[in-house]
């Protein structure tokens, strides 16, 4: 009986808080540590489960994949996830949670096959409430794998290599016509 009353009160209190408008929704006000912890666990466990069956193609280190993925990365990702020689952007500074700097080796914490599957899943499906779009709605799997292939080499690139690899050169123009 007491437990029932306690649960009912908790629901009412939660409802009052939600409708009160007291929660600071601005992206410049960080979550409480416990909220960040809970959301990160939720995100990582969900992505790990959902991407566990994904198998990466064996030819990710091909030049064609790097060129296709590089051009797409530069057009669609670099504004938030940065490029070699660029330390920050308006988007990387303003988004909350801050998008990871993908030019940095530090983001790679998992073994290769898990990282590849995780990257593919995130690009394809996006991440709720983070600003990360679900690119799978406008891009087929092959194109997303090309971006994954490029991400694998991105931390090794210098600005000159990045510029050449990400330019939408005549070769790609011809392929689209």
């Amino acid at each position, binding site marked *: 009986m007491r437990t029932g009353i306690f649960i009912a009160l908790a629901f009412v209190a939660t409802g009052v808080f939600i409708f009160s408008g007291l929660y600071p929704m601005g992206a410049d006000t960080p979550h409480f540590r416990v909220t960040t912890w809970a959301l990160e666990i939720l995100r990582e466990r969900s992505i790990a489960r959902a991407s566990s069956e994904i198998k990466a193609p064996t030819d990710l280190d091909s030049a064609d994949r790097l060129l296709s993925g590089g*051009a797409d990365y530069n057009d669609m990702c670099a504004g938030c996830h940065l490029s070699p020689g660029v330390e920050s952007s308006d988007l990387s500074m303003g988004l909350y949670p801050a998008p990871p700097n993908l030019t940095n080796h530090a983001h790679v914490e998992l073994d290769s096959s898990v990282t590849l599957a995780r990257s593919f899943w995130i690009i394809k499906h996006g991440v709720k409430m983070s600003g990360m779009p679900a690119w799978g709605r406008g891009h087929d799997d092959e194109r997303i794998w090309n971006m994954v292939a490029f991400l694998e080499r991105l931390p090794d690139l210098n600005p000159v290599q990045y510029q050449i690899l990400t330019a939408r050169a005549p070769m790609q123009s011809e392929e689209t016509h």
Partner: protein
Amino acid sequence: MNLVTKIATALGATTLLISLSSNAHEASEHMKDAQSPDCAAMAEMDHEKMDMNDPVMAAMMKQCMASDAHGEVATTGDAHQEHAHEAASTDSDAEHNHEAAAPVAAAVVEEVHQH
């Protein structure tokens, strides 16, 4: 506006939106903002450290070979302007650019093989 016209307008607008959204992320949609690869910068790289078996190097060579073939070698830091200049040039200018554009990729390949 009668009911039939309203329905036709709504259907037309919906069809247009769907067709636009389905093409929004085609690679060709990005071409209008495309930069030429700055292949001239490759010539300044340390060729002794270049590994022709590295996919990054292979991709750079492929990109620059294609650009050489199109006479679209940009100069460092000025790729957009160079590209815009080429687009605005006369036929004779374009021909001149093609001849003047050093086949950087081919030269780099040759030098790397010599090493």
